[in-house]
């Protein structure tokens, strides 16, 4: 018997149970169990559902459970490969986050309502899963809105802080601008096809004019790009993610941004379908915005000292890398280079999966630190590797993964992205070749800055000595939180060492032959073919072999040390760091996050426009040699807020001020408006031929 069609209703039922059950309890501990255990269980079921769809390779279609009185307003579900792949991302991350939340919600016990957190979290995850499963515009937008509203309420969960409310409003406004653009894109498609079903969009894909294609694409890129956090629509992201509770940040950053990517992939590859060289500009637009986002995101992250804001900016960066890969794929597709299109798509989707896993892990690690030290300011952390050894280890794993270093998963997807960039010489257009070349400069700079930034994030938060009393007294996070992080951390390792898992999932989701980019064997290498000067060569990367070789080198090194070079028996003494003869070091002599990034800030000063003001106070005005106090404030400017959003906001407010004059408050002027309106409508009717 086939259980597959039963899985989706079961998932929905479990999530709804997770949303309702906590309302029946009064005790915070029970509320947490009642909401997060069902969430974890249904997330696991989601993984099972998506894995079975991906393994069987056949899509799952569900007849609508709601009466189809109005066909376009019915709920319609269809889980194909693409939907299943993104469902897999959601399921994997939300499983580990749900387990983590069991312990993390303890931080709010007694202060905030745990049941609100649990219910909303269930609704949030459920709505994301349903977005990837819907098959018409109505149900898509319905769950999309549900997702936005649930996440908005979660962002303002700690509502007593005014900054959280402000970031919540920014998020709400930006996400609705995005929704408006997405709706517009769907409306254009509706006018072309006369239907609101995704099936008819798909079947009409070949017949759209190039203008319609372009219009739909631009609207979708702007709309879904707002959700995904592409520059310059990213401004809500570094506000909203730090405001939300950390388990929610992990979901928002790891998963919700990917739902934005899902929408972009669905529209671009499903409805617009680039097929002729004339469509290459769409890919180029994505390459440009993607590489720009990556660079801007990592630059802001590199000077940030709030750990969650830094991670949020890194999300902007990684979304940029994902969109860059997707754009390359569209460029290759437009020129009919199918195997390269598969390579770039694989890079992009692999990175989506990877980013979900390691960013979820990093936000969970940041949450543990936040819970135990009560601060997100890295300048007040330090020394946590001794107080929270497991959290530190997981954060290090996440840092190595996101910095794109071998042998973890970030390296593999960035290797694929680099290969896609290097393959761009096959595009028969010199403008595109050069633009992609320039994009790869931005990409490489991003990688360099990212690994430097994670030295700072891990080093300042976890290494050296505690910089505050709170950091000194921190203790390890509860076991359930460590369990959640263990799951995500081991996924980072598995996806890095066994790329076959991810490559076969992506190949099955998008229906391309895996042999185009990788060998068929589970332990075989990833391969990319090149041709130059009449010669053919194959670049390959096989992580299992790299691991074996590294292990052999390690064994040889150990053997060398123990057999060949034992030398004299040496003693290792422990002593404090040499303080230069000035007496015991205190934490003020240590490097901080701000001072560590000072050279980067000054190397990129034309971007950051750093502003440092020094305030000196003297005991008397006559003698400026003896100072009472000196205080230094240093800040960097938000280019996009200063030069894009503030002027736009001012202009809107100015226009609205004019409009407000219409509203005089006198009844006779309103009667005048009504008369004018009526007469002009009558005239319109009369004059119409």
């Amino acid at each position, binding site marked *: 018997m086939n259980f597959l069609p039963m899985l989706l209703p079961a998932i929905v039922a479990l999530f709804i149970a997770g949303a309702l059950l906590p309302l029946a309890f009064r005790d915070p501990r029970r509320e947490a169990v009642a909401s997060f255990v069902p969430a974890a269980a249904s997330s696991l079921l989601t993984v099972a559902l998506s894995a079975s769809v991906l393994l069987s390779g056949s899509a799952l279609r569900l007849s609508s459970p709601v009466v189809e009185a109005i066909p376009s307003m019915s709920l319609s579900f269809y889980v194909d490969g693409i939907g299943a792949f993104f469902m897999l991302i959601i399921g994997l991350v939300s499983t580990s986050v749900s387990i983590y939340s069991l312990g993390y919600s303890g931080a709010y016990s007694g202060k905030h309502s745990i049941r609100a957190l649990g219910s909303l979290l269930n609704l949030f995850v459920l709505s994301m899963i349903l977005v990837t499963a819907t098959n018409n515009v109505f149900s898509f937008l319905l769950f999309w809105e549900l997702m936005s509203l649930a996440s908005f309420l979660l962002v303002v969960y700690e509502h007593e802080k005014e900054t959280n409310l402000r970031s919540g409003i920014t998020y709400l406004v930006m996400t609705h601008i995005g929704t408006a653009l997405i709706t517009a894109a769907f409306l254009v498609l509706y006018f072309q096809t006369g239907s609101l079903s995704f099936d008819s969009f798909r079947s009409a894909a070949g017949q759209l004019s190039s203008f319609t294609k372009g219009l739909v694409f631009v609207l979708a890129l702007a709309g879904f790009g707002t959700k995904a956090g592409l520059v310059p629509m990213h401004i809500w992201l570094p506000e909203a993610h730090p405001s939300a509770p950390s388990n929610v940040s992990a979901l928002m950053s790891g998963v919700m941004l990917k739902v934005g990517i899902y929408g972009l992939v669905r529209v671009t590859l499903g409805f617009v379908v680039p097929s002729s060289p004339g469509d290459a500009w769409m890919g180029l637009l994505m390459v440009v915005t993607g590489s720009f986002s990556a660079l801007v995101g990592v630059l802001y992250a590199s000077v940030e000292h709030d750990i969650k804001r830094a991670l949020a900016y890194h999300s902007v960066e990684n979304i940029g890398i994902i969109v860059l890969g997707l754009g390359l794929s569209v460029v290759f597709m437009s020129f009919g280079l199918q195997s390269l299109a598969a390579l770039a798509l694989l890079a992009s989707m692999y990175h989506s999966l990877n980013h979900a896993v390691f960013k979820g892990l990093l936000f969970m690690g940041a949450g543990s630190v936040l819970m135990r030290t009560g601060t997100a300011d890295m300048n007040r952390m330090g020394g946590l*590797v001794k107080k929270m050894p497991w959290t530190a280890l997981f954060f290090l794993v996440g840092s*190595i993964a996101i*910095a*794109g*270093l*071998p042998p973890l998963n970030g390296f593999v997807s960035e290797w694929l992205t*680099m*290969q896609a*960039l*290097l393959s761009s010489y096959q595009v028969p257009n010199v403008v595109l*070749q050069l633009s992609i*070349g*320039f994009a*790869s*400069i931005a*990409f*490489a*700079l991003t*990688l*360099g*800055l990212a*690994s*430097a930034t994670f*030295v700072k994030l891990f*080093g*300042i938060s976890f*290494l*050296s*000595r505690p910089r505050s009393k709170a950091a000194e007294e921190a203790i390890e996070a509860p076991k359930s939180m460590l369990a959640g992080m263990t799951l995500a951390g081991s996924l980072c390792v598995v996806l890095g060492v066994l790329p076959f898992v991810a490559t076969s999932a992506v190949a099955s989701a998008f229906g391309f032959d895996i042999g185009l980019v990788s060998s068929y*064997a589970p332990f075989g*290498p990833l391969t*990319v073919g*090149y041709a*130059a*000067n009449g010669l*053919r*060569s*194959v*670049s*390959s*990367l*096989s992580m299992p*072999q790299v691991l074996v*070789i590294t292990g052999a*080198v390690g064994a040889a*090194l150990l053997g060398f040390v123990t057999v060949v*070079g034992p*030398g004299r028996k*040496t003693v*290792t*003494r422990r*002593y404090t*760091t040499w303080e230069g003869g000035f007496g015991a070091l205190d934490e003020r*002599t*240590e*490097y901080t996050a701000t001072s*560590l990034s*000072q*050279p980067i800030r000054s*190397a990129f000063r034309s971007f950051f426009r750093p502003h440092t003001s020094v305030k000196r106070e003297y005991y008397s005005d006559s003698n400026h040699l003896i100072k009472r106090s000196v205080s230094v404030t240093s800040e960097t400017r938000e280019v996009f807020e200063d030069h894009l959003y503030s002027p736009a906001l001012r202009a809107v407010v100015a226009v609205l001020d004019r409009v407000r004059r219409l509203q005089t408050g006198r009844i006779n002027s309103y009667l005048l408006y009504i008369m004018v309106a009526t007469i002009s409508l009558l005239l319109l009717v009369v004059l119409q031929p």
Partner: protein
Amino acid sequence: MTLFTTGADSLKVVAIGALQVVAVFAFAPLLTGIMRKVKARTQKRIGASVFQPYYEISKLWSKDEVVSDYSSWVFRSAPWVVALATITAALFIPVFVPFSPFSAAGDVLLVIGLLALARFFTMLAGIDAASAFGGIGTSREMMISSLVEPGLFLTIFVVSLTLGGTDLTSLVGAAARSGVVIAPSMLFGLISFFIIILAETGRLPFDNPATHLELTMVHEAMVLEYSGRSLALIEWSQSTKQLVLLALLANLFLPLGMPTSIDVGLLPLGLGALAVLAKVALISVLVAYVETRVAKWRLFRVPDLLTVAIASAMVGMIFFYL
């Protein structure tokens, strides 16, 4: 499971790999010694013997170690990670013969990744001991490495466009076949790669390997807290990285004397290996000579030079496409 899918049989592959890595590891300190000697002579000093780095390593090896109480396991493990990553990277590079024994397993991008992993742990170790010196070093290295990375990648981009792919065996083979590479893209790539190597191995004008002055040191500041065996490992890895990168420069850009494939017989292979040694020695003499002619640059002028490297690679790329 096919572990090695190259033409040569796997025993030969492992033998070449092992021989090469042993040779690299053994010769690396000698190269450092030669550079110091040349530098001393151009400064009208006699200088220490070229074997001095070996004496230093063996001295450090038998010394006791002091580890700061403030530091953690990250500090203790960093030298091992650095050594492991550097030696593994050396295995993937064709140094003496035009053949990378494990090119079925990894390419030049993996090599860059492994070297970046080593740097990542060195930078973390700099912070770990809570000394402000380590912080200075890490902070400077963060800026330099974030600009070195794009330069290195772009150079690889240019090389890969001109010679095809990222597989090191075929890259070096293609370079050897084309004889002296005079393609303009390769010339600009050479300029940028040379600058990148100076930065990557911590030579003047980026960093002074012979100083312990807080105003100037970068790499030395990061490893300041190390002593004994850990320091020996770090120094040895640093020499290895230097040799490997210089050999890569010689093999990709100055392939003179390198046989085009591994199947040409022992004599040409041996001659090729000697040629590589000679070229690497020559380049290191050049580097040492440059070091006596330039002063250490002010830290905030360093980005300018790295920008020159990036721009040069960019020009190379434009030359290739136009």
